[in-house]
């Protein structure tokens, strides 16, 4: 079976933007126009196809990036057909990991802006993330039907805050409630969207009042395009008319090289302009063969290796997302960079060295799935049956190993205590937290050594809130979360000494322990190799045994050290763990009958507390 779509007719792209700019609304339109869904699911009604998780529908936000496949025939050529693999990403900074990994595996991006607000903080963040992975972009200024929307102002904010390479590719016809269509500056035509849900794209002449502006901005647009093409540049300066086809080609080259960012406009909610953006995706965003071949490391030699994007090359893919599916178990989303993968075959996880069998391969339509036998280079699909593969692992042909560059994720910044509500929840909570942290690389779980409480860390309060909520719904675990806290430490800053005699000799077997100790701050800059034999130290404390002539028998010395250690762990001043103390045991006495380990341990502990308290006064 050969591939059903030639590679140059595949577009892997993502929709990225600030919170509430209309990413999901736009993707819903895309699904409708491409015939995947027969009814437009509205985000604000909680019915979006791409937002399938319960929390997403309730909150009206996107939490996980959903991948979906659809087909599109450009409006100007209905016989051609392209396959789109679209990823809809979340806007909140708390879910930045989703955006990061989506950008890593995408070839291009449609950046959506709110026509009222223009560039917003998260647009800046995702723009910088896209810069990092050199993802070619086109812009879509959305929501132009809203009161206060301005194409010109939004466009200027892109120039000011994001890139000087942005250029108008369209003009709106009317703004706010008068928005009726858009002008294409390339073809110099006006487009109106009529019929049910704007499905009919009507081409007309540009309205008189917009003609002057259109001419002016077209010149700007063309100047920007020809900057990257010497032949066209000459033609342009000679004043010759350049064919639309040539301009398109030059613009495509410019966009793929990240030198031009065309700006489109419309309103997804009012069904204006979305089809033309899809045409632009076809015309200007790269197909998998337009981007440079993926590079990685050959694990055997440690040398740089390259995989060409062809079906004949050895198989190489990057796992970028794990998702627990209630029906089929764990799904591993991966992007195939080269070669092909058949269901039932074995792959090598080059990151861990494990060999795994790919049971089934699924092509995802947000939460619905379609089983396929083979996936080819340039595609995005999900595998069932990979048990040892986690996010950003490389999957490859066992005969031709390669390790692709990993996705870098930010470190968590907020921590909270979490405890199960009932005893029965305890074990379930452990499993739930492990699964969630496997899915989300920015969510970490650890247990506090001091209090044995479970601490969860994530990218922000919303992030942790959503995860705790998911734990409740998907894993049925009830949990209490605490306030964020600081784990202070105690230490000493000066020298001190103390003596303590622990006595209990009131008849029968008595207790006798007598120690003299000196304390000083621990010096970390010492050569561990050259420590004298009587010094015992670990990360947090140092114990020096300076007992001469057996005034304390050597069998009681470890007990003394234990007394110090336990006092330090408990803390003296405010109950926080004490660190960096050097304690020298230099004198004492013992009793032939009454001395015991416990007596010396207690004597040292009391002496230690006294010595520390002297310093804190």
């Amino acid at each position, binding site marked *: 079976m050969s591939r059903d779509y030639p590679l140059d007719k595949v577009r892997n792209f993502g929709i990225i933007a600030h919170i509430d700019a209309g990413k999901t609304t736009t993707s819903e339109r895309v699904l409708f126009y491409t015939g995947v869904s027969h009814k437009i699911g509205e985000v604000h009604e909680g019915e979006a196809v791409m937002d399938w998780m319960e929390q997403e529908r309730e909150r009206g936000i996107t939490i996980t990036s959903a991948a979906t496949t659809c087909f599109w025939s450009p409006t100007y050529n209905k016989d051609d057909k392209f396959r789109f693999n679209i990823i809809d990403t979340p806007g909140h*900074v708390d879910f930045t990991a989703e955006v990061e990994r989506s950008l890593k595996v995408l070839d291009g991006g449609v950046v959506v802006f709110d026509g009222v607000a223009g560039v*917003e*903080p998260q647009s*800046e*963040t995702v723009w910088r993330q896209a810069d990092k992975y050199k993802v070619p972009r086109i812009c879509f200024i959305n929501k132009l039907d809203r009161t206060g929307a301005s194409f010109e102002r939004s466009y200027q904010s892109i120039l*000011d*805050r*994001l890139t000087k390479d942005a250029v108008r590719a369209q003009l709106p016809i009317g703004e706010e409630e008068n928005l009726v269509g858009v002008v294409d500056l390339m073809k110099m035509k006006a487009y109106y969207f009529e019929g049910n849900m704007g499905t009919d794209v009507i081409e007309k002449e540009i309205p008189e009042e917009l003609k002057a502006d259109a001419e002016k901005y077209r010149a700007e647009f063309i100047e920007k395009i020809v900057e990257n093409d010497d032949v066209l540049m000459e033609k342009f300066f000679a004043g010759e008319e350049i064919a639309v086809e040539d301009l398109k080609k030059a613009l495509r080259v410019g966009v793929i090289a990240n030198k031009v960012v065309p700006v489109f406009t419309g309103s997804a909610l009012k069904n204006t302009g979305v089809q033309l953006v899809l045409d632009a995706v076809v015309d200007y965003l790269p197909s998998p063969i337009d981007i440079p071949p993926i590079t990685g490391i050959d694990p055997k030699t440690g040398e740089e290796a390259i995989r060409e994007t062809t079906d004949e090359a050895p198989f190489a893919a990057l796992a970028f997302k794990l998702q627990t599916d209630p029906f089929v178990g764990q799904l591993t989303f991966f992007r195939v960079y080269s070669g092909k993968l058949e269901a039932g075959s074995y792959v090598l996880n080059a990151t861990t060295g494990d060999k795994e069998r790919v049971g089934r391969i699924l092509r995802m339509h947000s939460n619905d799935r379609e089983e396929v036998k083979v996936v080819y280079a340039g595609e995005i699909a999900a595998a069932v049956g990979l048990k040892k593969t986690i996010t950003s692992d490389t999957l490859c042909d066992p005969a031709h190993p390669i390790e692709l560059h990993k996705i870098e994720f*930010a*470190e968590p*910044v907020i921590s909270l205590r979490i405890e199960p509500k009932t005893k029965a929840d305890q074990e379930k909570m452990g499993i739930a937290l492990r699964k969630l942290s496997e899915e989300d690389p920015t969510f970490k779980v650890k247990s506090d050594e001091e209090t044995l409480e479970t601490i969860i860390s994530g990218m*922000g*309060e919303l992030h942790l809130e959503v995860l705790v909520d998911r734990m409740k719904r998907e894993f049925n675990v009830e949990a209490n979360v605490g306030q*964020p806290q*600081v784990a*202070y*430490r105690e230490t000493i*800053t000066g020298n001190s000494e103390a003596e303590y005699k622990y006595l209990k000799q009131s008849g029968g077997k008595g207790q006798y322990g007598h120690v003299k100790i000196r304390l000083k701050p621990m010096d970390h800059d010492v050569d561990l190799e050259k420590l004298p034999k009587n010094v015992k130290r670990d990360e947090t404390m140092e114990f020096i045994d300076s007992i001469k002539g057996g005034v304390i028998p050597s069998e009681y010395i470890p007990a003394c050290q234990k007394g110090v250690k336990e006092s330090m762990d408990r803390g003296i*001043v*405010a*109950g*926080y763990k004490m*660190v960096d103390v050097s304690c020298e045991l230099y004198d004492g006495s013992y009793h032939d009958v009454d001395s015991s380990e416990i007596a010396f341990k207690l004597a040292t502990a009391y002496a230690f507390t006294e010595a520390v308290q002297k310093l804190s006064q």
Partner: protein
Amino acid sequence: MKVEVVVPDKFLGDITGNLSSKRGQIEGTHERGNNIVAIDAQVPLSEMFGYTTALRSMTEGRGNITMEFDHYAIVPQNVAEDIKKSRG
């Protein structure tokens, strides 16, 4: 905590002032292009709870912060007294 605050440069003064009032030490600032500036600072964790929200309200929502643990430092006397009280 090692803190990096990224804000549009018109908020630079407000933010550095605010960080200093949180016992923070500003270690430097650098341009990020497009009128964005990044401020590097050392600030105690106990002062940073709820900072994300505070930062957003101070910067029209355009500020961004990342922080990570750097080292332990001596708590000033007055703060130490408060901690001791709260721990009984």
